[in-house]
């Protein structure tokens, strides 16, 4: 099916439109709240996808992902507190502009750049997915195993300060993924005599536990009764064509960088926002004004973090391999509906795939419309103190887990994982690495075992197949890069410690 053969009317079915609107609303709301990012927004919506049609459910999650990336800029600009890690770069110029002149104007730059970035990322996804899937069709089990490992190594290398603990998180995630009946041999594994575990750990319970419950406990550990004050005046997000033209270059830089970085596993919206901010500043005619409310400093990171969404969906849909926690959760929605993303999805489910691609563009337009209408209202929501927010989010998260399978057992699993990962997070274990490994575990294990069965247990096929060899070289390069970064950081820490330490006798 060619990309323009899609039945566009099917996209405008009520269920799809409701999915997009609900996803956009929840994404904007959760993204705007400091401390709760796109991942939490997607996790909270995931349980409700059980009762929905596949396209509507995935569009809801994709819309939430897209909207949360813009939503994060609302608190960055108005409060000076990033709503999402990716919105931290927006804070520098966004908050400065809000204080100096108008928060509405800063939000307008953010919204328009986010929309442009989102559309650009969506088009990259639309036009690159088919060529990439053609390449992916030539790959087989050894390559899928290695791509999964590549994703895990990249995420482990970038998602925590402690590389070894990130790798331990990966192994723990892979171990959690082995619970339940083995697909190849039908042997039940690690089910502890509990019938609830025969189908494996409930993905929704684990995801909600790690990303919602652990995050809630983190919020309890912070100041609970801080009341943020926002002024509802000056929040109109009007922007003129001349103002848009003034940030066109920065928006372009952010859109291209965001799309490219989104494709790379482990990098994500935060990295793309900072890279784009830095590049926009270096190439600006007025670099000295960055940090003082320069609109280019808002447009570059905001277009980048939204362009990342389309880029990040590319490896998920064409290869079936997510590169971040957010896309791993979206993979969960595919699995819930019995659909395995990958190159064959283009021939098996063309309406679904192209529905997602065009739906992402529609969701970006919805984000612009709802953002334009409701940004002042979302700014008002920021005044809700955590003492009210925490119980509400906790209660809704528990309901979401129960709604997925109707099992009390899953609620205990969510609570257990939440508490465990609250403490492990304090010791620099990586939640994104664990989740990605947990979701990828069945793919990695099955690919490895099938590959070894075909080769009679010989590992040489990883070296003799050209695609495998190429991926292996990339894995070695990524590992080398990660180890080099660790060595550099350790040396820098030692130097800093030596400078700070008083000499003997002093």
């Amino acid at each position: 099916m060619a990309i323009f053969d899609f039945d566009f009317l099917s996209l405008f079915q009520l269920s799809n439109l409701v999915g997009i609107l609900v996803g956009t609303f929840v994404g904007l709301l959760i993204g705007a709240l400091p401390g709760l990012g796109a991942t939490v927004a997607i996790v909270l919506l995931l349980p409700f996808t059980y009762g929905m049609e596949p396209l509507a459910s995935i569009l809801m999650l994709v819309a939430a992902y897209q909207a949360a990336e813009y939503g994060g800029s609302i608190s960055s600009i108005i409060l000076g507190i990033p709503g999402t890690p990716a919105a931290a770069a927006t804070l520098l110029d966004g908050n400065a502009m809000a204080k100096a002149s108008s928060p509405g104007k800063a939000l307008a730059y953010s919204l328009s750049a986010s929309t442009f970035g989102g559309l650009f990322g969506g088009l990259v996804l639309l036009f690159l997915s088919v060529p990439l899937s053609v390449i992916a069709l030539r790959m087989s089990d050894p390559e899928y195993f290695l791509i999964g490992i590549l994703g895990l190594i990249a995420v482990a290398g970038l998602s925590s300060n402690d590389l070894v603990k990130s790798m331990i998180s990966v192994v723990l995630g892979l171990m959690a993924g082995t619970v339940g009946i083995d697909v190849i041999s039908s042997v039940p594994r690690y089910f502890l005599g509990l019938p609830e575990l025969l189908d494996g750990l409930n993905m929704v319970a684990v995801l909600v536990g790690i990303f919602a419950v652990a995050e809630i406990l983190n919020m309890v550990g912070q100041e609970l009764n801080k009341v943020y004050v926002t002024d509802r005046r000056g929040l109109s997000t009007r922007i003129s064509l001349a103002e848009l033209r003034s940030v066109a270059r920065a928006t372009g830089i952010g859109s291209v960088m965001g799309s490219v970085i989104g494709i790379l596993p482990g990098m994500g919206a935060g990295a793309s926002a900072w890279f784009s901010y830095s590049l926009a500043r270096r190439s600006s005619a007025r670099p000295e004004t960055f940090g003082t409310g320069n609109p280019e400093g808002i447009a570059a990171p905001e277009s980048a973090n939204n362009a990342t969404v389309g880029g990040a969906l590319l490896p998920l849909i064409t290869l079936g391999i997510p590169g971040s926690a957010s896309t791993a959760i979206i993979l969960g929605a595919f699995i819930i509906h019995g659909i395995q993303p990958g190159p064959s999805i283009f021939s098996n489910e063309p309406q679904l795939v192209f529905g997602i691609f065009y739906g992402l563009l529609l969701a970006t337009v919805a984000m612009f419309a709802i953002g334009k209408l409701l940004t002042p209202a979302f700014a008002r929501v920021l005044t809700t103190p955590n003492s009210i927010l925490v119980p509400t989010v906790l209660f809704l998260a528990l309901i979401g887990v129960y709604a997925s399978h109707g099992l009390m057992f899953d609620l205990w699993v969510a609570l257990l994982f939440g508490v465990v990962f609250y403490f492990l997070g304090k010791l620099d274990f990586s939640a994104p690495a664990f989740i990605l490994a947990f979701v990828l575990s069945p793919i990695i294990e099955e690919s490895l075992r099938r590959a070894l069965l075909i080769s009679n247990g010989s590992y040489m096929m990883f070296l003799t197949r050209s695609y495998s060899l190429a991926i292996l070289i990339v894995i070695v390069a990524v590992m080398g890069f990660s180890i080099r970064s660790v060595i550099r950081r350790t040396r820098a820490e030692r130097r800093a410690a030596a400078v700070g330490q008083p000499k003997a006798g002093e």
Partner: protein
Amino acid sequence: MSYNKATLVVMALLLVLAAAYGWEATSFHDMRNRNSVGPSYFPVALAVILALLCIVSAVQSLVRADTRVELPNMPLIAATVALTGVFLIVWAMLGAFYLGGFILMLSLIFLYDPVFTPRAILRNLAVAISVILFTYLLFGLLIQIRF
């Protein structure tokens, strides 16, 4: 709490987990297909890798400069987990989901913000009732989930 000591404790626990996980894996046998890449192959490999990584991390924590792990508001965190656990037990044993949910909401709000002026009490009651009402309308009536 010492970061390095906490790391050592966690690594010791994970080593026990790796041993138990690996030991259990040796009992998995595919009766139909007796080859080397059976259901125990991947878990055994994971157990070995986990054990090795735990040893590396433990050694790192022995030679690294120590820092403190901050766990602020620990009593509140413990109370949050305990109240959630009590709510789940009450829900499972008595089936009183909406009442239990209302009490959980109200208890947590007062726990986090212990102000008992008439205005604060009214506000907190309104929030708890609104959340429960929203839950009933959306999940109970619209989605028809039986709690």
